[in-house]
């Protein structure tokens, strides 16, 4: 009996001991996961959270949304392939887009801004930051806070540009009720928030801030840009009652698809803000400046020098912001810029001389032939008529629709041949930075603003600074312009200066001339094609001629990479082409074919009669008659499709928006819809 009792007691005691587990046993954590306080303990730790934001912007935001279609959807730039769905937004055919066409870009912009907002909140709660703000001291903390806020504003700015009115302010929390916010309200809010942080940020060069991070200089420019976009023409919705509150509009053209082309009636208030802050960006330029001289002994093109910094994998002193990138890597970072928008190459995806460049960005031939003055150094540095074959040889581009060396003349601002040495290991991996904003852009935006505000003298002065760099002298300055003529001159200068950089379509939109310009370029192309068809050539008002055929020949140059043009040598005119000397790269030397790596071109700007004596003489000298403009004639339907075919009359509202993706539409209980004829 006693034994049994002892056993019972023992068992019961034992059981009681098991119920007394440590109270916090179920609080499990891992040192691999750290909390908010840990990651914001010091400025350098805090920057690591922003490091992710910048990288996420590069990896997931910049492609898929504006960077793909912005630079190919204007009256100067186009996409090269026929019947592709890649350029539906660029040609303003939003009805054909699928609702989730850019869901990745849309969501990632919000992800990036949500993270930036979270980081900003964490910094705002720090005593050290509050102290610096109270005393007005610019410190690492105030810079980081400003950077986070600038990131947030930058993402929202891009959202509005590409999606129009969007939901605002729902980040980092679970929402069941949300709706569209007026873009004008969001712009006001962004401007207000940036005005607060801007004075406490570092100018470029201060606090080790380079143009690969957001600086006070960039923040100033961004305020100006946002104000300019708020005040400029844009396509607004008429299908959502009360969306814009009491903002009044001056409308243009016809109302279609529940939208209209308009600008706010009080736009001048915004142009004034833009003027103030674009000027502030120039005043606070820090180490940035417009490059006006060329330090190279073998070339003299300060305009091209800016792009050479990208090829040299350096930060250009003209950049206000360029998105940092890196070469190689186990998994490649997004190095799309030179691949998508650079000088075309037929090379293979890896180990080629050079590797493939798709070349999504083609220059409409009327711009190349008709808009540039032949003395303008920008032309050859901006547009190329040749690409690379992938085996160390230069190759004439073709106007037959396609990609790589087919598809038309292309941008020349990014060319892997100009890297030293080129990255030949893998395509899309050369690691050039993404250009975002440079001083010339800021100056010409300021010129645009001043022209609109009637400050003609200042505007002319700004434009001439840009022109003097391009021509190397003041002989091509604009003089005495004002009013609409001045505005047109600024617009034209922006077109040629910033060609292929994704600004032209926005310039046209803001200026209220988008649809007129679209119709104009369509007609100009039609005239050119008619002439090519009937006469074999077309003459532009500047005297340049495009012909149905040209004559080309492969020739030898000791240095196959060429620089400033030499009109006496058909292999050196136009300039800024040729090939890197790939036989000097051991890994690829075996792939280099032949010894004549350069293309000599005859008849590019003048008419040579195919049946005439000159043609016969060229052919006897080894030149080959080659299709040129005739390929545009033969494929004109493709060109018609790819040049803003969504605009059919000058009164059409330009419908340049992307659809808000389905996840955001479908959970909104009907409060968020896609307008402009986009799918819902």
């Amino acid at each position, binding site marked *: 009996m006693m034994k049994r009792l002892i*056993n019972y007691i*023992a*068992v019961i*005691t*034992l059981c009681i*001991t*098991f119920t007394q*587990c440590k109270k916090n046993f*179920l*609080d*499990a954590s*891992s040192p*691999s*996961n*750290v909390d908010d306080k840990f*990651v914001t303990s010091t400025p350098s730790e805090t920057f*690591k959270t922003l*490091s*992710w934001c910048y*990288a*996420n912007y590069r*990896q997931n935001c910049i492609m898929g949304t504006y960077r793909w279609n912005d630079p190919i959807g204007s009256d100067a730039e186009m996409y090269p392939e026929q*019947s592709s*769905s890649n350029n*539906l937004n660029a040609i303003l055919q939003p009805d054909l887009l*699928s*609702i989730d066409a850019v869901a990745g870009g849309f*969501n990632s912009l*919000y*992800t990036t801004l*949500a*993270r930036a907002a979270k980081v900003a909140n964490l910094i705002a709660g720090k005593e050290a930051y509050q102290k610096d703000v109270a005393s007005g001291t610019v410190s690492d903390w105030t810079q980081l806070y400003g950077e986070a806020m600038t990131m947030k504003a930058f993402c929202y700015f891009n959202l509005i540009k590409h999606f129009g009115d*969007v*939901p605002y302010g*729902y980040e*980092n*929390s*679970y*929402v069941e009720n949300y709706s569209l916010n007026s873009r004008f309200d969001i712009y006001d809010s962004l401007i207000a928030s940036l005005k607060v942080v801007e004075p406490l940020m570092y100018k470029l060069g201060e606090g080790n801030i380079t143009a*690969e991070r957001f600086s006070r200089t960039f923040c100033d420019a961004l305020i100006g840009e946002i104000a300019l976009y708020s005040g400029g023409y844009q396509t607004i919705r008429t299908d959502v009652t009360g969306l814009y509150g009491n903002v009044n509009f001056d409308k243009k053209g016809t109302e279609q698809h529940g939208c209209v082309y308009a600008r706010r009636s009080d736009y001048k208030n915004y142009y004034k803000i833009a003027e103030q802050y674009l000027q502030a960006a120039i005043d606070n330029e820090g180490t940035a400046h417009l490059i006006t001289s060329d330090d190279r002994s073998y070339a003299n093109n300060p305009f091209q020098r800016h792009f050479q910094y990208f090829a040299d994998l350096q930060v250009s002193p003209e950049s206000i912001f360029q998105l*940092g990138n*890196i070469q190689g890597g186990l*998994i490649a*970072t*997004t190095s799309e810029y030179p691949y998508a928008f650079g000088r075309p190459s037929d090379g*293979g995806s*890896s*180990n*080629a001389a050079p590797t493939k460049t798709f070349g999504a960005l083609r220059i409409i031939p009327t711009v190349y032939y008709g808009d540039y003055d032949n003395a303008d150094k920008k032309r050859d540095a901006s547009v190329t008529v040749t690409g690379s074959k992938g085996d160390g040889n230069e190759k004439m581009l073709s106007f037959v*629709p*396609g990609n790589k060396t087919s598809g038309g003349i292309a941008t020349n601002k990014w060319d892997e041949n100009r890297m030293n040495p080129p990255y030949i290991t893998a395509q899309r991996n050369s*690691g050039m930075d993404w250009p975002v904003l440079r001083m010339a852009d800021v100056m010409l935006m300021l010129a645009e603003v001043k022209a609109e505000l009637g400050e003609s003298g200042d505007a002319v002065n700004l434009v001439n600074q840009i022109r003097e760099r391009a021509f190397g002298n003041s002989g091509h300055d604009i003089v005495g312009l004002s009013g609409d003529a001045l505005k047109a001159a600024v617009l034209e200068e922006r077109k040629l200066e910033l060609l292929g950089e994704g600004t032209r379509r926005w310039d046209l939109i803001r200026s209220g001339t988008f649809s007129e310009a679209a119709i104009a370029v369509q007609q100009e192309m039609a005239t050119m094609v008619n002439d090519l068809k009937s006469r074999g050539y077309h003459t532009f008002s500047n005297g340049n001629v495009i012909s149905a055929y040209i004559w080309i020949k492969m020739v030898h140059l000791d240095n196959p990479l060429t620089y400033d043009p030499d009109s006496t040598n058909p292999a050196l005119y136009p300039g800024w082409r040729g090939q890197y000397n790939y036989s000097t790269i051991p*890994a690829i030397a*075996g792939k280099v074919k032949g010894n004549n790596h350069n293309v000599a071109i005859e008849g590019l700007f003048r008419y040579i009669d195919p049946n005439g004596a000159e043609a016969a003489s060229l052919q006897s000298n080894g030149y080959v008659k080659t299709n040129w403009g005739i390929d545009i004639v033969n*494929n004109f*339907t493709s060109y018609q499709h790819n040049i803003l075919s969504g605009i059919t009359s000058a009164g059409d509202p330009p419908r340049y928006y992307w659809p808000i993706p389905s*996840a*955001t539409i*479908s*959970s909104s209980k009907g409060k968020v819809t896609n307008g402009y004829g986009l799918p819902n």
Partner: protein
Amino acid sequence: MKSKFYFLVVLLFSFTTAMSQNKTITGRVTSGSGEALTGATVSVRGTKTVTSTNSAGNYSIEVPSTGNVVLEFSYVGSKKVSIPVEGRSNVDVKLSVTASTLNDVVVIGYGTVKRKDLTGAVASVSGKEIATAPVANVAQAMQGKLPGVSVVSQDGRPGADIAIRVRGGGSISQSNQPLILIDGVPGTLSDIPADQVQSIDVLKDASSTAIYGSRGANGVVLVTTKGAKAGKTTVSLNSYVKFNTPAKYMKALDPYDYLKYVWANAAANGNAFQIPFEQLYGLGANTGNNTGGIDSYKNLTSDDIQKQVYNNSTSWNHGMTLTGGTDKTKILFSADYIDDEGMKINSYFKRANVAFKLAQKVFDNVTFSLDTRYTNNQNMDNEGTTNGYGSLLSTAYTFRPIATSHILGDLNALTQGNIEQYGKNVMWDNYSPAARIGDYFPLSLSQNFQGIASLDWKVVKGLTYHSDFSMNTSWGQQKYWSGAIYNNYIDDATGEQLYAGNATYGKSDSWGLRWSNTLNYDFNINNSNQLNILAGQEVYNSGGTGISIQANHFPANFDKQTAFAQINQYDQTVGSSTFSSSVSTPNRINSYFGRVNYSLLDKYLFTVTFRADGSSKFAPTNRWGYFPAGAFAWKLSDEPFMKTVLWLDNLKLRASYGEVGNNGINSNLWSQSWGSVTDQRYQYAINRERQSAYDLASSTLANPNLKWETTITRDIGTDFTLFKSRLSGTVDVYWNTTKDLLMLTTIPGITGFTSTYANIGQTSNKGVELSLSGTIYESKDWRVTAGGNINFNKGNVDNLAPNVTGLYGTVWGGTAATYPVNDYILLPGHPVGLVRGLTYEGIYTPADFDYNNGTYTLKKGIADIGSWITVIHGLTANDRPSGQNAYPGLPKYKDLNGDGIIDDKDLSVIGNMNPIHTGGFNLNATYKSIDFGVYFNWSYGNQIYNANKLATLYGPKEAGVYQNKLDIMKNSYKIYDVQNGQLVRLTTPDQLNAANANASLPLAYNEVIGVSTLGIEDGSYLRLNTLVLGYTLPKSITSKAKINNLRIYGSIYNLLTITGYSGLDPEVNADPSHNNAIYPTTGLDFGTYPRARSFVVGLNLSF
């Protein structure tokens, strides 16, 4: 913890028991036919003395030397026999063994119960059945043998994952894999050699699984390994050799058709593709020395590279078990080694396993047991897939079917133009699939050590205290090496190796600790009221760490050994490296549970179970879950009024109801913390230097309200035995409802997140299971038995939260190339596993168009393909009017909404991947010493999404141009034809009609593939999974060699499959979440590793 242990030790020594005078009785227990019965229980009535017979049927037991001693003999499947000793010292007994399994012991949570007393739904398979025809993974042996348990292996790769689903599985985002407990400890079935299994019991309803609370929702698989036995030492050996041979290869175009197809395809992609192809083979305008042109290749036999990539292989297995001991000390030692060679180059699974078990009676009423197991696995194989393509293995057929020696044109063309640029992988021998697979070594190593120490203390009569302490530690290594060919690190001009290759080297370890304590009290209130009460507590804690290094571009003089040994020696000028380390968040569970079994009059059985689980995976407020269950069983056949039904031996009705949980989510989902960024793409670069970065630890929006997913199970069943135990069976009807689904949910991107986990929606599974087994014929020499089971399960998504679209995709073709991107859908009212796409309606013919001057303009009233189709190679701007996509030969789809355009609005559910019923049946016969068995399993009514087929039905550009196609493309629509040895573009309606009179598949020059009914096939099959023929040598011969038992056998696996499915194998589960799809991508056949047909010769020997 430590102090508790001392307390226990003190307790153990605090009492002793007195023993009286004893004598020993020995004897032998045999079956009716005189066979020795191993493991029969022998006990002394009225005492706790018990022993069991050894493999020769002998026993030895101590009994009091005085008094009326009665021995009780019992054996599984026989009635208990009581025999008074009456002074004898030797008592031999014959037990008549029936086919009935009612007395089998069934393992349930924290205890066992006789099958006849079971109230829940439990399916069992014995170790003997599993060992008859051994397989590398025990789960394979379960296939088709357990009602309500579906077992589908991933595919034919060695070490393949095997999906086990108990009654369908209710979860969508979470794992549906049942809790697998090996001797009570969570483990992996592939770690256990088949011949070490004593039994496998699968708990299916809450009545039995609720005792596992939060982990029981998907059912529980309890594996009991063989234990040590007292008696004479026995040694048993099990060995086999297995010859594997491919059951099927993909049928690709033969040389002539290949040339015809690819030549045309190259032409459609332009001169740059066409001309080098013509030069290479000597075709068309570039005949060269091949004056016969394409006709020279007629009748040439295919050089099928698939046969180099995967072909016959040999596997083998040796196992040995030694057991023996005394009444007080029992020992088992077991060792096993398997080398399972895959049919593919560089694929194998090797496992070494050692187990040691000890049971030591410390006192008369206290037993201490130790159970240890060490497993060492080596697995070489990782069949990754590439979007739009498949795996290297599954697309080996795309390599040119013409051997280099048979190429009649200019071989220099191989190294030029677009062949050089895009065609290497399908044209160059040194980049062939065989060469690339042979240069890729994805080796995973793992070691696992597990020890369980347990203590059984019979405190007083009927009250048992059991304590179980287990720990396991695992070490894993990932040593992936890819060489110069695989990575294209070859200078093609010189053949020189530029770099040796890339290495991925990871090490990880994990640990788990578990301590459970139970008190079990068995007592009778009186003869008609019997109670068994179990109360217990369990704590579980596990965690792990890992490090990983990746480096690329090792210098050419390196090989994989040197690279792993000197991983920092990669070429830093071109290469890069990443490294990372991690510590996992511990997974902790603290639980309390209890169970009451009450038996009234031995006819009415009641079970009530309750478990409370606290889990570290949830926020403090939602940590605890409570899981109750109840069951009732009625032994109807024991009622007096049933005694007159003579053909009925036993009939039991069961009903149960209960709740179980599923906590299978990551620990980090309820709070938002930060983690370091390893992926270099998310480390920003400043001045060409990577900047360290912190990202949120989870990409989902944290949801502090997360709680358990709860499954309510309802089950009604009956167990019966008929006709003097000739036939027995079980029928179960169930209805499981899973509520508060823990689902990955899409949320609007404006939050900064695109998904969160939330408890939303509900699913259910309803079904019927029937299993029957019986003796068909029995005589002195013959015994023929058969068994089978059939399962009907209907899964259903009962409801989803309003913001869940249910759309998800595999994007097997890549986001830009698969239409629609979301090719799967969850639909309320339907099961999980619906494929969404277009309805194929044939081919556009010239009759659908107005033809004018080369342009085909679609007639009014005929729907056009939407702009999603994008580029179609071979068509120029003039072939179609601007804005029209349709062209003769393209696939025609059903215009569901009649708006004249085939787009998103014409998508519908086109396939259901769920079977109507599945099952298995077997037939076993023994004639004297010969045994024979066949095992079939089937699936009926399910469809398969044959992406391998769709992948040949479209035309990727560049690298896709020179690929060979599946044989079916012989009959695809042509817009080019070969006439007089020249390739001709067919343009006029007459030309197209003439060439395509027999076309049965569309033109495949489109870069985007429309998912349509063309890719949906009936997946029903009946497979003769195993055939076994064995011969046991007569005792008269073996006993001379002191051999107790010697059986030799041969078996064939995967002998025959009857199916209408056109793919390699209708058992499809290669990639249940392809491309990390958020919900299950059931039934997708893409990039599979084919199953072998295997021939086995083996022997079982014991002495």
